[in-house]
């Protein structure tokens, strides 16, 4: 149970160090914190948030404002990431396909690669990196300005007022981001394939639905939705627990991005694995 990073961190934070047993205890404390307390508190927040979700009235205004805010910070980067992503898939897969002599399936592979895997992946990058960090910064700065405390004292539940609309806005926008990445990625792939790799437009377009099927898109949208919820919850958790002034907010944002990435990649893997278990591939 030794986590040197945490031990060092704890030592730095507390001025008065004990002996070696004190250090050991602190390391133990830190490990318990990471393994048990933090996930426990996060889970408690998740439960509270889901409870608050069904409380009326729903904060439509906040939901729409936040959706617009998330759109404004994610759309352009999403497109800019999606174009080269589609391109690189075309380059890589296109080359392989040519070697295998299956040029007529370039379109099919591009669709499968982009819709099934690449677009949820790009969505997760953007949702975690742009939406989650912005949301955590917003909630964290409210926390250190004592706005959250003031809200509670005024008899308003910040989970209901701030977290629920943000989380749902994040999930809602993620659905569209996923669609956007699919479309932009496919267009990018088409352009690269046809213009740079001398593929034929007919081959690219005709095999479009040779392998891909509707459930592929549905699972991608499902992933995007789950990613949005996760990013919103992690951002809210880290933001609501920010402490120690502006640096605390910076730390919280940093941790949000890292934790969200890890969780989203894990979720992506789990959902994909389940999908392949339960949904049969399309027979050719």
């Amino acid at each position: 149970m030794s986590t040197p990073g945490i031990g060092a961190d704890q030592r730095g934070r507390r001025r008065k160090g004990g002996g070696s047993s004190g250090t050991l205890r602190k390391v133990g404390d830190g490990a318990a914190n990471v393994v048990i307390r933090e996930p426990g508190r996060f889970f408690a927040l998740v439960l509270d948030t889901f409870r608050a979700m069904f409380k009326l009235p729903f904060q439509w205004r906040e939901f729409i404002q936040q959706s617009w805010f998330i759109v404004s910070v994610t759309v352009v980067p999403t497109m800019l990431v999606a174009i080269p992503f589609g391109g690189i898939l075309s380059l890589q897969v296109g080359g392989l396909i040519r070697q295998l002599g299956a040029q007529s399936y370039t379109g099919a592979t591009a669709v499968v690669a982009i819709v099934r895997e690449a677009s949820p992946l790009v969505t997760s990058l953007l949702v975690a990196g742009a939406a989650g960090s912005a949301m955590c910064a917003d909630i964290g700065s409210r926390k250190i300005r004592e706005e959250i405390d003031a809200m509670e004292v005024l008899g308003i539940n910040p989970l209901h007022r701030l977290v629920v609309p943000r989380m749902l806005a994040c999930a809602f926008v993620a659905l569209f981001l996923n669609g956007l990445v699919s479309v932009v990625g496919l267009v990018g792939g088409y352009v690269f394939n046809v213009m740079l790799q001398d593929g034929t437009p007919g081959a690219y377009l005709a095999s479009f639905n040779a392998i891909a099927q509707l459930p592929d898109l549905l699972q991608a949208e499902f992933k995007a939705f789950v990613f949005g919820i996760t990013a919103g919850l992690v951002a809210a958790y880290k933001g609501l627990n920010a402490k120690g002034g502006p640096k605390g907010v910076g730390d919280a944002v940093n941790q949000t991005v890292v934790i969200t990435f890890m969780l989203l990649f894990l979720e992506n893997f789990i959902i994909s694995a389940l999908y392949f278990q339960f949904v049969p591939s399309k027979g050719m």
Partner: protein
Amino acid sequence: MGVEIRVEGLTKAFGRQVIWQDVSLTIPAGEISVLLGPSGTGKSVFLKTLVGLLKPDRGHIWIGDRDLPNLPEAQLYETRKLFGVLFQDGALFGSMNIFDNIAFPLREHTKKSESEVKRIVLEKMDLVGLIGAEHKLPGEISGGMKKRAGLARALVLDPEILLVDEPDSGLDPVRTAFLNQVFIDLNAQIGATFLIVTHDINTARTVPDNIGLLYQRHLAMFGPREMLLSSEEPVVRQFLNASKIGPIGMSEEKDESELEAEAKMGLDSGMLPPIPPQQMPSNGLVRRGMHAPGAWCAAHGVTPPPGSFIDELGRNWIEEWPRYVASMSAGAGAAAPGGYPPGGGHYPGDMPPGQPGAGARY
């Protein structure tokens, strides 16, 4: 108006670090109490625990017949409506302008029409002297204005209890004195129970009816102002006189050798400074929680230090008090007699008394 807060055996720790333990005190209804303590003794934590933002590890907080730490969430939110809290920097919502900030509790918790909301908000803004700043955002106003806006927001639902966290932090002494006058006038007007957490000795000596002192994880003393100001208890004495001489050291408690060296140097004159007269409302009202000057000392056989209860004009308030009360009750509601600019001379004499919020124009 005003609700008593009864705290019993309250203990709070963060991890292994005990913040304070076994704090028991009763904050009397309608009176102004001040909580003092060296930096880092958990005064703000105490305040946050009182409103239920932090959960104590042990103990009870009785607000009427409700025990705050053990209330279910729905009732906790309901009970919080009794409280108005002024946070250190006002804690205004950065995305709303001043007007919307102050109107926020009304819009959330009442079904008042927009014109009614506007009337109440403008009234409270007048009370704290903020008229004209309605459309400014919190980022565009000064620290003092933020505090006053926060105060107006805390007052808008007519709280029974007002908790104030360090009203003097980041304010100059003159503004602090004015803000103190606002608290006293407000207390006279709405009769709520006030608890002010502060470092400011001048505030602690002249404003409250009761003083409490947190020191070394315990409540060193809590009681009427005169009791603490005439106390010989070393910690209380040192803190209330902002003195270097006494058991409180720079970072921790002084050790015995330091104390001995101090005693040898004979720096301590053994005399307590005089007890100043209490600051009084400037709006011609009499505060319910106010006690006659010298009453506690007389009742407990304590001789106040020489020169006590004498204001800057040389008047002895023990003698003036009956006349002041008589003139107040005779002219109740009308202007306060011009001959009695009350308090220790902490606000300008040219300010016409008897006007609500007269002390707020800064």
